[in-house]
């Protein structure tokens, strides 16, 4: 996968994930182009579009469009289900996800995506495992990880041979 974009019916970009190196201006240009192209499509049209030497696979969920660009030989249908699985993950995490959840908790939407897809490829397709990873991370949030701190001190002790002055 080359990139994933989430945008509203009004064409507002809600999430953008790029799996290929591009400059900011290229990203802006591509987003504009793709959003415009997808918004111009009528319902019932097919979910795949040829674009440059790639394919755009998109699907609309309520007010949000989910849109992926994949390599030419990539499987369109499975990409469509990648999108669906991501929607399911968001839905499960936020509880009936809506556009506002993604606007206000955009960082969470990115974390969930990173657990699911990495470097443009599916990393973990099990819904349970992805959600468990995110929940574990949420649990960790305010807990000072003393175990780690201790480990650091120990390493320090071994290599330097004395405790730090504090």
């Amino acid at each position, binding site marked *: 996968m080359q990139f994933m974009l989430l945008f509203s019916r009004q064409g507002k*970009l809600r999430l*953008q994930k790029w799996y290929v*190196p591009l400059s900011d201006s290229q990203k*802006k240009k591509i987003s504009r182009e793709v959003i415009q192209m997808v918004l111009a499509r*009528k319902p*019932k*049209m*097919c*979910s*795949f579009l*040829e674009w440059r*030497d790639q394919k755009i696979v998109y699907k609309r969920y309520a007010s949000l469009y989910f849109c992926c660009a994949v390599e030419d*030989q990539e*499987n*369109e*249908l*499975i990409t*469509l*289900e*990648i999108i*669906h*699985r991501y929607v399911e993950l968001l839905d499960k995490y*936020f*509880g009936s996800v809506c556009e506002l*959840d993604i*606007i*206000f*908790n*955009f*960082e*969470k939407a*990115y*974390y969930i995506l*990173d657990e699911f897809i*990495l*470097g*443009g*490829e*599916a*990393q*973990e*397709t*099990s*819904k*349970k*495992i992805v959600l468990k*990873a995110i929940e*574990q*991370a*949420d649990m*960790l*949030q*305010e*807990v*000072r*990880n003393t*175990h*780690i*701190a201790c*480990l650091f001190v120990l390493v320090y002790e071994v290599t330097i041979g004395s405790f730090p002055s504090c």
Partner: protein
Amino acid sequence: MPAVSKGDGMRGLAVFISDIRNCKSKEAEIKRINKELANIRSKFKGDKALDGYSKKKYVCKLLFIFLLGHDIDFGHMEAVNLLSSNKYTEKQIGYLFISVLVNSNSELIRLINNAIKNDLSSRNPTFMCLALHCIANVGSREMAEAFAGEIPRILVAGDTMDSVKQSAALCLLRLYKTSPDLVLMGEWTSRVVHLLNDQHMGVVTAAISLITCLSQKNPDEFKTCVSLAVSRLSRIVSSASTDLQDYTYYFVPAPWLSCKLLRLLQCYPPPEDGAVKGRLVECLETILNKAQEPPKSKKVQHSNAKNAILFEAISLIIHYDSEPNLLVRACNQLGQFLQHRETNLRYLALESMCTLASSEFSHEAVKTHIETVINALKTERDVSVRQRAADLLYAMCDRSNAKQIVAEMLSYLETADYSIREEMVLKVAILAEKYAVDYSWYVDTILNLIRIAGDYVSEEVWYRVIQIVINRDDVQGYAAKTVFEALQAPACHENMVKVGGYILGEFGNLIAGDPRSSPLVQFNLLHSKFHLCSVPTRALLLSAYIKFINLFPETKSTIQEVLRSDSQIRNSDVELQQRAVEYLKLSSIASTDVLATVLEEMPPFPERESSILAKLKKKKGPGAVSVNELEEGKREAGELNGGGERGGDSSAISTPSPSADLLGLRAGHPVTAAAPSAGSLLVDVFSETGFIHYGRLMLLIFLRTHERTITKPVPFLAVPACLSASHTLLSLALRFVCKNNGVLFENQLLQIGIKSEYRQNLGRIYLFYGNKTSVQFVTFTTTLNVQSKPVEPLIEGGAQVQQVINIECLTDFSDAPLLNIKFRYGGALQNLTLKLPVTINKFFQPTEMASHDFFQRWKQLSQPQQEAQKIFKASHAMDTEVLKAKLLGLGMALLENVDPNPENFVCAGVIQSKAQQVGSLLRLEPNAQAQMYRLTVRSSKDTVSKRLCELLAEQF
């Protein structure tokens, strides 16, 4: 359970996002953002150390602002600080910021890499995953250098957690894609391949992406993966829908992994081991069988997942292209999808069938669906589906159905969407040529094509029809008759006129026996279109006329009359004028024999790759045809005209020329050697619209060089076709001293227009870069020895881009800024340096004053260095009005009734610069008798007087 309720919500962030959402206008939003940026900046710069929470909150706000589309140029350091926080959420935000706002500052990269290194060695799987995600998201070369050695170790280590292995595999994949030279699997290869056997499906899913990519590059090293992949696939395919628990998706077992396994197998030929192959064929059959089973769920997700595997399996079957049974089954399955109610499935079936059509085993099976596909072309509501149908028709076309398919495509063209017309036209042209058994059908088809979609018929198409007509003498009479009839339509496309001009010019004699198409009727018909045509077509018609004189001596006087008319012989276009003059001369001085030799029928063209195919190859992209087909097309195209009884040299077929001009004039003929010395005539007659044979041309050149005295010398602009070396064009800038707008520079490739406006000491220049060619300019850059906004790096053929340059005059100056332009046209680097027409006088503020005041100030500026004077010869006519206009253009006030001598001009103005204002007075005294001027400039600054005097002396 929205995350905000989990206690880590950042209130300040939520408030800020609400504020932004409540903004009524873009301006309000920008205002709110700027306020926030100022706030964050002051917090980051403040003396008080920020706690982790605040830092996290502000970094997150910056990220939000960036994602809204605004530029963020600070906060990187704070984000990097967060990386080493012990609090997970702080670390997480830090990593997210770094991943999104990649920064190339090397010091920063060092710090980021350090933090990543710490997290990778922390042995805490959550932290390790965060670090790996960051590397995978950024994927820069620096990161590859730092971590490409470490990550394979993590990937294969026995004690690595599954989640970390998954991240490590995909992280490595990303690094391999950016820097393959740094990712060396070496000793790890076999252990990586064996990840396919891992118990954890997630690990297999992640690892297989890496293995597939590595296999594509080094198939031999990874070939043991084939049998592992087959057995894994077989286990999945034969498992019950509930066996795989959470990896079952809507009753389909592990669809993602199945697709990836089938994709991996496509990197290799069919397995050699009989047992492995048998097992794989069994899998593929099971997948095809399952497609026939009733669905286990009505949900579209179920059918999508199931069909995703089916399409991937069909791709593998096509890739192997060795199992006729499977190929035919695949084709039948796709045939069912052609009429499915899901648009997506119809689209994919058409697409997939396109590749099946190229297999000898399934070509016939695909052909049975022709009616359905034609129907799709006519009735599908989605243009992208219709496009697929057109592609499939093209792919399934052969001798047996060519006439039907071409007819359907032609009738579809009448209503086809603009977006696909050009490609459709090319396809029709190729099919017509490839499967032409009788050439009258071919000629009819192409002329129909021009009639229906003339605008979309590219040069290549009409070149090709001419080439074929010339090479096949059995079709020439028919072609002449048909094109003559087509030209009788009241409105016919210009391309039709071109074909008509060419064919009648060559073969009009073949139909001249019929009084309805007598020579004069033919000529009058062609000439009736003349005035509606563009210059290149008119040029072609003029060549047709001279050919007529040779073919039909009875038309000579009529045609000479036309050539002699002012609209030809004095045409403002040099090309037309030159042709008219030379053809007229040629027809009047050359004897019939000479004329017949010069204007003999064109010899057959050398056989070579059809230029249309070359064009379609170039267009490869939307609806591309597979290379195999193209190759096949080439062979067949060669057969078509190579088999001509003109003795076409069929060995030449195998040397396709990259040149797209079908007439073969530039690349095919031996003209290249003679071109440089032969001069302009050679170039123009050999342009693509000319059709006078090279051998005869030398004679024409001879005539031309010996008739110089009678041939009116016609200026032929010898502009180099491309500026290969760096050209410095400085003098042009002088033309703009007294005007602000115009064409600054022009050659055959590029036109630069300029528009400028000045107010006090400020100026703004708009530069318009116009691409005069049909080819795009890439890596277009301009550099100014002062600052300017960057320009778009790419200029499409025929397009124009604009660049704005803001100027402030700081103090007086004499050197104009230099503008350097670099771009690539085709392969060649073009380099050009221009002086921007910014001169000191642009910053003049006109000052009106009475005679008395003028002389008083004139006297005040009496120090010798304040005055500059020049006496020079007039280089233009001394017309008072022109002089006035020029002086006004200079920017000063032109003062009437000041100088006692009404012949003289006086002006006054103040030059506005940031440093100072320089009052200037000017007096210009023309001497009509001597054709001389005396120019005197006085100003409060000596350098200004001198510079103004220099500038102006060149203007009159």
